[in-house]
């Protein structure tokens, strides 16, 4: 039984391994120029070199710090606006239409505005990332605050709960599943946008910059490695969030 589960977990590796094999076959037979598609061995060797040189950690650290800042600002703002609109229909009528209109503007559309106002600064990048985290967090929190069933609301009335305790004991817990998936989506959004921020706001440092530099110098192996690292970190973040969700939502699992 346990063995079966372990085997099932490994299923996720089948497609990546197949792709790796295809990649290897293509490059070995030189069907594609090594400039565009370097050999897997080359990529691995470059990876080791970068790893030993250590600069990659500086870039990684830079990107992660930026994401953390933008993400925290974005989800805090999203949580506050989402709860406000979820709890008060007046606030929803005031902010809802504006929020939904602004949300239609693609995040990339904000780049010129941010550059004109804040210049090519760290702040501009953080706001850009925060914006990406803000939308899904607001929507999910708002949605979550509306999840409380009328039946439970009656329980709160029977026990004469006041507003703050109603929020703490009833509304927020019933919103928690939605809020947590909001956090998860915001996190991947923020992580995706940091690369964009580093490329479009043309500044030194970070994984995005590393990738762009490598592109300029036609170092496909480095481009590959950055893509791999970005994907891997995104995967890990998602995984950690899933574990956190399972822990916090233990009450949903029966037996």
């Amino acid at each position, binding site marked *: 039984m346990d063995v079966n589960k372990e085997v099932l977990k490994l299923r996720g590796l089948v497609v990546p391994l197949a792709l790796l094999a295809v990649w290897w076959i293509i490059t070995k037979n030189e069907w594609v120029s090594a400039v565009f598609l370097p050999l897997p061995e080359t990529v691995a060797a470059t990876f080791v070199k970068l790893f030993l040189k250590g600069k990659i950690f500086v870039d990684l650290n830079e990107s992660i710090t930026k994401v953390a800042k933008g993400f925290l600002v974005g989800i805090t703002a999203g949580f506050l606006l989402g709860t406000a609109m979820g709890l008060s229909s007046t606030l929803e009528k005031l902010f809802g239409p504006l929020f939904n209109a602004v949300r239609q503007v693609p995040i990339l559309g904000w780049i010129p505005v941010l550059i004109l106002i804040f210049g090519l600064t760290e702040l501009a990048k953080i706001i850009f990332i925060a914006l990406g985290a803000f939308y899904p967090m607001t929507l999910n929190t708002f949605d979550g605050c509306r999840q409380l069933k009328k039946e*439970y609301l009656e329980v709160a009335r*029977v026990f004469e709960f006041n507003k703050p305790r109603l929020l703490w*004991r009833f509304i927020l817990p019933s919103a928690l599943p939605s809020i947590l998936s909001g956090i998860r989506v915001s996190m991947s959004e923020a992580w995706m946008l940091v690369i964009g921020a580093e490329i479009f706001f043309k500044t030194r440092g970070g994984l995005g910059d590393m990738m762009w530099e490598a592109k300029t110098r036609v170092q496909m192996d480095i481009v590959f490695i950055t893509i791999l690292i970005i994907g891997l970190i995104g995967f890990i973040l998602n995984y950690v969030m899933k574990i956190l969700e399972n822990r916090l939502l233990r009450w949903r699992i029966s*037996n």
Partner: protein
Amino acid sequence: MTQRGTLDIVNLKKTFNVNGNTTPVLENINLKVKQGEFVSIIGPSGCGKTTLLRLVIGLENSYEGQILLDGKRINGPGLDRGVVFQDHRLLPWLTVERNVGLGLEGKRNGKVVNKEIVQAHLKLVGLQGFEKVYPAQLSGGMAQRAAIARALVNQPELLLLDEPLGALDALTRMYMQLELEKIWKREAQVTMIMITHDVEEAVYLSDKVVIMSSRPGTIKKIIPVELPRPRDRASYDFMKLKEEILEEFQLHAENVFSYAI
């Protein structure tokens, strides 16, 4: 000064507005319940039992006539009334312990005292050892018992139960009836009003059985049950009373599912 836990319903009328039409749901309801009495309400589906109970709980506020608790008009829910809903309505995100303690949260008793009160009530319903369990992990009977404990924690003067045992299987149900009787005896002051579909359950537990009829919901008859306790379900008097109530619904005992003892 009326005694704690007396309920007085006088000429109660309740209508619901559905799509602009006013439909009467309850009409001419008159009922007196004394302190410590156990009253069952029985009647066909849709006759307004739940509506009547919700009015007493204070969850429905527009009505004609009077609903007086200890001589005072009921105006919204209050901790003087405990409620057990048909669907137990335990909060799924709180442990049994936290659920049972919900009613104590607003009180400034201090943590230790609150914990003791919760423990005492868990013991009362036989749920010691299940403090840290979530409702999803409880059986139907256990969840219903937790709900009863939750309703009793504030020492209400009036306990209102809407088909508390309706969702349980026959055996668990009989067991819970014994439990309910035990609780009622131990909490000698508390008045209980219970809705049920089960005539035997009503006769077994009640001092008074209120029979309702529908469209609009009215009280058809109030039958006092004066059998000595503990009651013997197989005794002649018990059977006769059961028959008498079933008669009111134009049903005979042989047509109705009854427990074999």
